[in-house]
């Protein structure tokens, strides 16, 4: 099978989904109203609430939600063959993620741009708000731990990406300071920094940085994870303009460059998918159903998108009907990235034997590495040297993941502080302690999985928590639709589907954790399972109640 053909089928399905299904959901179910005064207009403050052109807003939304996860998940899931992953990404994007992201955006815009967390409190009640906080904290915990492992995997496999990553830190800080101190405009420094970054990617090829096998008696994977969290801890207490924002901005540019290079290159070299459509996976691989649905979270449906859509994007919506393009098409953007990841991880290998070798063992998969190699091969079609392209793709994922860790630790600190305030534990409200606790928890989780090399053990935990968040959002949206007397089947079916899949998936994972006698992961698994049941009970109770309380419009 030609990769281009698969790409065309996938992208074509996205287009059809957008023009038919999203139109139906927007007009018939949500009945978007062009005359509705959006929060961006009602509360315009020039900072958070700003009416924004829908194409621009789509750019903001897409670059906020796209990260390392839609790359890693699909590149793992192709172990069952390319077709299941492809179908889940395409159908998931059209019927799950698109609706979910779009609905979160609309419901938030109709609640003055408030976050899903606040709306949960209004629609499901205060108890559900606590549930929400727990889920978010776990989600951040998982994200940080799993991304530290992902970055470590890249650094160990492609040591050339260390140098460009390192150089990007002072580079971003320099831009931040120049801009903040008013010494320069933004366009020139940003272009210069991109050039410098690419130069260092080139240098990285010749100056790989490798840690010795063991350092101070520690495995080098452990050392990398420790260093990454040290970095995240420091970065998270800096003001956003010093590092987070300038780098975020460089990442956004990188994302479009990478998508362009990946798809264009593929078009030119016209690779064949070497992987089978259905693969008989190696021994030790969990069954496709339900594990596929928690392995690919971002890229098919992701609760994280609801958080971005509801807290941030909704405050900039110019007109209500724009939500369709911004929310739904934002999910399609993510699906496009996931699709590229599938293609890179299946067509980016020379032979089936190579592919089989890479995917020989479930617990040893480094999905991100497959993506990196695949994209590098595609890029060679554009005349970009493969060595350079490898570092380029690797650095892109590293930077996505590192930015997420930085933000994640930051948010975790807020939540720890919030807990400290609620339960009157003063030391938790201190920035240093909150950061240490946040980072400590993540480290514990990262190391609990085979000393930092067991990414595949915690990846399903991440996927599950992410899906649970999506399930919660879909519950809130369905209740809202019920109150309006609209059909709820289009949101309830995805909701039931993912709640069932995550619950079964989690039960299976628990079996693995028990058999490995991993106390921490078992405990976490039980906690997540408990949260899932809690959510299911809350949802059933709320649906049985005839009059959900306090819904606007």
């Amino acid at each position: 099978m030609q990769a281009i053909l698969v790409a065309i089928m996938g992208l074509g399905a996205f287009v059809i989904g957008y023009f038919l299904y999203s139109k139906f959901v927007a007009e018939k179910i949500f009945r978007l109203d062009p005359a509705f005064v959006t929060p961006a207009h009602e509360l315009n403050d020039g900072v958070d609430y700003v009416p924004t052109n829908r194409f621009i807003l789509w750019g903001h939304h897409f670059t906020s939600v796209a990260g390392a996860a839609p790359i890693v998940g699909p590149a793992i899931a192709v172990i069952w063959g390319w077709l299941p992953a492809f179908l889940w990404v395409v159908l998931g994007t059209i019927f799950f993620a698109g609706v979910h992201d779009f609905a979160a955006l609309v419901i938030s815009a109709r609640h003055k741009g408030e976050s899903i967390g606040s709306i949960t409190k209004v629609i499901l009640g205060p108890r559900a708000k606590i549930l929400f906080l727990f889920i978010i904290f776990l989600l951040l915990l998982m994200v940080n731990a799993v991304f530290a492992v992902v970055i470590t995997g890249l650094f160990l496999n492609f040591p050339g990406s260390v140098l460009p990553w390192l150089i990007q830190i002072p580079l971003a800080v320099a831009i931040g300071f120049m801009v903040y101190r008013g010494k320069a405009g933004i366009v020139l420094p940003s272009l210069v920094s991109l050039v410098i970054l690419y130069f260092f990617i080139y240098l990285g090829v010749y100056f790989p940085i490798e840690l010795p096998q063991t350092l101070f008696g520690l495995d080098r994977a452990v050392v990398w994870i420790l260093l990454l969290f040290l970095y995240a801890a420091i970065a998270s207490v800096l003001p956003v303009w010093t590092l987070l924002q300038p780098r975020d901005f460089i990442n956004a540019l990188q994302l479009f460059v990478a998508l362009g290079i990946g798809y264009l290159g593929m078009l030119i070299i016209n690779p064949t998918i070497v992987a089978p459509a259905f693969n008989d996976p190696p021994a030790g691989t969990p069954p496709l159903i339900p594990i596929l649905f928690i392995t690919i979270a971002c890229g098919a449906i992701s609760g994280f998108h609801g958080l971005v859509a509801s807290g941030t994007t909704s405050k900039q919506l110019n007109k209500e009907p724009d939500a369709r393009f911004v929310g739904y098409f934002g999910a399609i953007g993510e699906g496009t990235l996931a699709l590229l990841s599938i293609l890179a991880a299946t067509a980016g290998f020379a032979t089936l034997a190579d592919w089989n070798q890479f995917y020989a063992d479930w617990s040893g998969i480094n999905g991100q590495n497959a993506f990196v190699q695949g994209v590098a091969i595609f890029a060679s079609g554009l005349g970009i040297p493969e060595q350079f392209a490898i570092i380029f793709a690797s650095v892109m994922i590293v930077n996505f993941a590192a930015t997420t860790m930085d933000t994640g630790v930051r948010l975790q600190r807020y939540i720890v502080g919030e807990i400290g305030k609620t339960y009157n534990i003063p030391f938790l409200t201190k920035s240093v302690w909150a950061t240490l606790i946040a980072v400590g928890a993540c480290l514990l989780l990262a190391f609990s999985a085979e000393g930092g090399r067991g990414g595949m053990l915690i990846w399903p935990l991440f996927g599950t928590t992410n899906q649970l968040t999506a399930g919660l959002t879909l519950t809130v949206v369905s209740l809202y639709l019920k109150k309006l007397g609209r059909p709820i089947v289009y949101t309830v079916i995805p909701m039931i589907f993912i709640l069932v899949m995550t619950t079964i998936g989690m039960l299976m994972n628990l079996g693995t954790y028990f058999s490995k006698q991993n106390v921490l992961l078992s405990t976490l698994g039980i906690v997540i399972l408990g949260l899932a049941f809690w959510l299911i009970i809350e949802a059933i109770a709320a649906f049985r109640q005839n009059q959900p309380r306090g819904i606007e419009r």
Partner: protein
Amino acid sequence: MKELITGKKILFLGGKGGVGKSTTSAVLAYQAAAQSINTLIVSTDPAHSTMDIWGKRIHDRPKKLLPFLSAMDIDSREEMKQYLRRVRQQLLEVVKPDMTGAVDRHLNMVKHAPGSEEAAIFDKMVQILLEYQHEYDLIIFDTAPTGHTLRLLSMPYILEPFVKNLVRQRTRVHQAQGGTRAFAGRDDNDGDRRQDPVYEHLLQRLERIKQVEKIFMDREKTAFIPVTVAEALPVQETLRLVAQLSKQGFPIGGVIVNRLLPDPPDGNRFWMSRKTTEQKWLQELQIRLKGKYPVYGMSLLEDDVCGVERVRQVRPQILST
């Protein structure tokens, strides 16, 4: 007692209520004026006893009583009124015209808020110190009872960190403004700081507080003089006041013991007993001060100290050094 008034530029008299702070201040002021030291006596005591002593109306600006002696009175209510009137005028420029009533109601509440009164007194004290310290050779502050005095004296130390912090925060605001302005393509980075009236206000406050702090701590020019009587409670309170003042590093010029009894008539058991008690407490005071500060005494008079003529007749005597 000469050393109490010569060489010093600023005296603060404080002590328990009713021990005769105002009388003592008046006496010191008179003695200074008699030596051609141009003296200003300032009463911060809301009780307004200064007026009764001099037998003249005294207002919120210096009034000449004798060739080298002027007196003034800090009326905290009046000070607040003037301050709030200024704020009101500025506020009315920015609010809608129909909100005058609301502005007045709010400012009226501020007037009665805790801390406002002493803040007003402190403010005026600062103004007097900075404005008149060159015009007069000696300024004597007749302060309110102990707790009040201590609070007043510690004002700069309470306020300084707060104002400093505000200045620091404001500077950070300016930096952030510089950053956002750069995006708008302008580079007048210091513009805001120079034109920011809020920053100006704060800097002025800080500057004044620092100057006053300097004056308070100046051992050469400034002295704090606790006034007391030789009885159990006043002596104990005075010892506490001295301890507190020296702990905070204020220079103490000495302690004045007021209303010392004359020698009792022989055989009068009541007066003999009173005199013994007085001597006991006087000794206690002197022992506890360990000779660190001189102690002065002023005799009890036959009648009230009212009017210049009576003030002239009283003179503190050194009891111990």
